[in-house]
């Protein structure tokens, strides 16, 4: 198969509640795909099906032989008080490769190489809580990278971070993609993240649309995805999604002067 991973008519559920229904999704070498959708739309579940931690109740998942996947969880789920230094956390990426508790010279060299590449080598001995938001995200990207993955999956890597960290994370992902890594990233941030990605999948339990941001960030697709009317403007060649209900509420409080935007879709 040419793709790294292919989900065919996948239906997945937690107990009796289906979270994904007949999802077809393939990721090939060099792809950089963002998955967008409302809360509960199945974004994280797609990643969990790809890693194998959520088994489909119907359909099949085909993977390239000896596919190595790196998974970066939401940082909200991390126990920041757990006693691990940055280097110890990153070395967890080599868990299956050696039985002895201590890292080999080769593992330490690889870890230092990845930490250097991601710009956090100087904080390798620090506790994970002592790092800034962008650096904390890089710890878990580094852990995933230590597995030398062909496919990197990231779950909401910009959730709850400030603008600077979001920019930092996006820049890092574009660099890794440029280095040849296939990336799938989930996000709820349509304007700050999704619009800057090469390709998007709009998901609401099923795949609503897939394509470049300008092709899929349209009022029709967004209404089907989010179940609410949304408007799309184009600003500097980039689609900008706006919520008319939020704007109406804002205008009641402070009248704003109109900008010069082109309507899309």
């Amino acid at each position, binding site marked *: 198969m040419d793709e790294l991973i292919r989900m065919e008519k996948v239906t997945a559920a937690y107990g009796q509640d289906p979270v994904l229904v007949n999802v077809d999704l393939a990721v090939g070498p060099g792809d950089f795909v963002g998955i967008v959708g409302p809360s509960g739309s199945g974004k994280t579940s797609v990643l969990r099906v790809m890693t194998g931690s959520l088994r489909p109740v119907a359909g099949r998942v085909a993977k390239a032989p000896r596919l190595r996947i790196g998974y970066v969880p939401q940082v909200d789920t*991390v126990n920041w008080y757990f*006693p691990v*230094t940055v280097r110890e956390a990153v070395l967890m990426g080599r868990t299956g490769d050696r039985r002895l508790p201590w890292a080999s010279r080769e593992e330490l060299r690889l870890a230092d190489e990845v930490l250097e590449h991601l*710009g956090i080598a100087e904080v390798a001995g620090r506790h994970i809580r002592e790092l800034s938001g962008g*650096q904390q995200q890089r710890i878990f990207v580094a852990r995933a990278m230590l597995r030398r993955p062909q496919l990197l999956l990231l779950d909401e890597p910009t959730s709850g971070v400030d603008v600077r960290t979001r920019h930092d994370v996006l820049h890092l992902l574009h660099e890794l993609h440029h280095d040849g890594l296939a990336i799938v990233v989930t996000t709820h941030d349509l304007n700050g993240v999704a619009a800057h990605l090469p390709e998007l999948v709009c998901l609401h339990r099923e795949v609503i649309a897939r394509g470049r941001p300008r092709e899929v960030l349209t009022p029709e697709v967004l209404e089907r995805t989010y179940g609410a009317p949304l408007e799309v403007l184009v600003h500097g060649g980039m689609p900008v999604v706006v919520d008319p209900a939020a704007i109406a509420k804002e205008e009641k409080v402070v009248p704003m002067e109109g900008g010069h935007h082109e309507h899309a879709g």
Partner: protein
Amino acid sequence: MSTLVEPFSFEFFRNGILVATLSGILTGLVGVYVVLRGMSYIGHGLSHAIFGGAVASFVTNVNFYLGAGAWGVVATLMINRVARRRTIGADAAIGVVTSASLAFGLALLSRFRSFTRNFEAALFGNVLGVELADLAVVGGVTLAAAVFVFMLYRPLLFATFDPEVAEASGVRTGWIDAGFAVVLAATVVATMQILGVLLIAAMLVIPPVIGRLLTDSFGKMLGLSVLVGGLSGFTGMYLSWYLNISSGATVVLVAAAVFVVVYAVSGARRRLPQREPAVG
């Protein structure tokens, strides 16, 4: 000088101090994972649950270690199963299973009063009453737990820190959890006669917490916890000879005293100017 070494001239004391030190090392080692997995209450509850199994073993003439050990593993698995029902929750599941098991033990105890004295030892510990067989069991369980931690150090750490990603990375978290449940149950059973049902939980929690206060590194925390556990066992047993108080209680009080000192010192250190988070 001769007064200081006097207790070592008695075999029962030599056995006692050895078994107390080993118990401290064992609980210090296993306790790190108990604390970091948020299972402190399960350690407390499990020791109570196993008491029921210990009484049942005596009643049915089954070997104490086999009967109580099997009871402990079953109790742990039952807690896991009950806790899976989201409407109940882990804390309530532990309360139901362990309290019922303790009540069962007490009911048997009141029905068959002839061996009450043995169970005073189980409740409060009796280091000086240990026999070579007890020494062998504690030594064997300590060695087995050390081998378990050594061989599974990496997957155990990954599954403790981040179970979901560990599973996604190929770690068999279900097997790891089941294996750890067995090690924990064996630890409680082996140290029950030494520290007592009521004090095991303290030794599963205090040494790891002291280690955590002293370091941010997992490997160092593990080493410190084992060291504090072992030293508390040794010092507590030794002091109990001169103070003429319960050895199990003295071991826990020594660990608690170390905790108070470390807590005060680390609190004072925290009030000093801290290194700022790195920018970037």
